């Protein structure tokens, strides 16, 4: 009786999880159109909205329940790792989302992302939102030592090759971190990454816009990705290896049968 109920429950869980994946697929298509027409912030707002936060929690719950409800999943470590990896990505994404930063604020990480505009020699601890309308105080100070751009030698349009900014981070009047950032090479301090985001030159000289983003949840996400990818390589690698061995051992008789069937 209990066994029959569990079988029914598992079938129901499988259908629910597939419906949730189908819904996410549908929402991703909608998000792509919204992002294309109204801009990426509109798509981001959709996926960070409270109804979608409920959806993400439901997806996470279904994945976790599946791990308990399906003994076959627990007995296959690679399948288990792939599903655990998905849980880590969704969990890390939720923990690092704008929604989470709004609802679970801390003094060290007052907001999920912001910008700091600085010229050479200037200091600031104010983290503005991307429209420069509101700001929060960071628990440390950023000093810009130098900012510059390099150009391609042989490019007739003078295309920029890279942008650089040398930064110092000061906390309690002590230098705690120093480094040169460039595109693709951020600096990490105090739960934040500092990025070379914008660059310009006006009558007062060169200035840089630093994008500052919280690193909350990122390690979970990358651990999840690594788990999924590693498990997939081993699992599907074994599937492919079995197929090659089957082909080699079956020889010409199977080959002839396949040729006929095709």
């Amino acid at each position, binding site marked *: 009786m209990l066994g029959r109920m569990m079988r029914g429950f598992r079938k129901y869980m*499988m259908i629910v*999880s*597939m419906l949730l*994946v*189908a819904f*996410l*697929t549908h929402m*991703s*298509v909608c*998000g*792509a*159109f919204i*992002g*294309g*027409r109204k801009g*990426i912030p509109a*798509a*981001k707002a*959709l*996926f960070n909205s409270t109804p979608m936060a409920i959806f993400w929690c439901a997806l996470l719950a279904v994945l976790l329940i599946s791990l308990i409800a399906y003994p076959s999943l627990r007995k296959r470590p690679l399948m288990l790792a792939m599903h655990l990896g998905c849980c880590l990505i969704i969990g890390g*994404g939720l923990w690092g989302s704008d929604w989470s930063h709004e609802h679970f604020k801390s003094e060290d990480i007052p907001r999920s*992302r912001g910008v700091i505009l600085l010229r050479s020699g200037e200091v600031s601890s104010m983290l503005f939102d991307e429209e420069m309308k509101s700001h929060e105080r960071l628990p440390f100070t950023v000093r810009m030592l130098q900012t510059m751009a390099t150009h*391609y030698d042989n*490019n007739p349009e003078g*295309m*920029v*090759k*890279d*942008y650089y900014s040398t930064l110092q981070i000061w906390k309690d009047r002590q230098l705690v971190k120093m480094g040169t950032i*460039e*595109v*693709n*090479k*951020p600096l990490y301090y105090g739960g934040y*990454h500092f*990025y070379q*985001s914008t660059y310009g030159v006006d009558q007062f000289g060169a200035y840089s816009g630093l*994008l500052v*983003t919280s690193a909350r949840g*990122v390690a979970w*996400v*990358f651990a999840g*990705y*690594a788990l*999924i*990818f590693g498990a*997939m*390589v081993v699992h*599907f690698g074994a*599937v*492919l290896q079995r*197929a*090659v061995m089957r*082909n080699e051992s079956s020889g010409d008789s199977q*080959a002839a049968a*396949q*040729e006929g*069937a*095709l």
Partner: protein
Amino acid sequence: MILKLDVQGALIYISMAGYFLALVTSLVKTKVSRVLFVLAFLTNAAALIYRGIHVQHLPMQNMFEVFLFLGFCIGPIHWMSGRLLHPRHSAFLAIDAVIALVVLFPAGFIFNHQPQSLPPALQCWLFGPHVAAYMLAYIFMAKAAVFAGAGLATSGDNLQSQKMLSEFSYLLIAAGFPMLTAGLFLGSVWGKLAWGDWWGWDPKELWSLVCWLVYVLYLHVRYGWPKSYRLQHALVLLGMAAIVITLLWVNLSKIFAGQHNYAS
């Protein structure tokens, strides 16, 4: 239509001619078609290397280079899938020659091949692995879609053919899906390094997620309902449609403007 009257264009056209002749001869003279296929692949490789030397960076930046690279992927995938599915079947060579012609045509006749310098965001060690993982995955999935299409065209009563075509599709997806995942993973790491977010809700990212999710659905249907061949074939074709949209529509139309626009 842009005719490329230079060394770059000549190499692409020779390669296309080789694939075309390999296709024509595949059903009658298989040994000749294999030699032609190898020559076409080597010419495609030469076109890619020539491009790399000419632009002085990995030739994967814009649509022209991406399609040239897609053509190059056909060779290694042909030999690998030969070991997986059937080493000597002439129809497989013909399928690969057709895919090669389809992907080389835009490189040869549609996309502009004016050399471009790499913008700062693309100067990253992840640039090559991220794009290459996706391109290899796309070719595997394209091959899987051919078998899925054949499965849908075949009568549902012919269970032996349905099972075999479904198995071929599955094996190709088993090879391509980890690469699709690798592309997503590397893209996320790169997004965090370059733009500050591992996921930016950009249209191209969302369409890439759609591709991945469709294959996730396919794998679950295959594990849960292994004999639902027609549904599996339909999902493989849906996945391929999502890939075509991700690769072409998102980059070429103005509907999906976003952070990946430099690929246009």
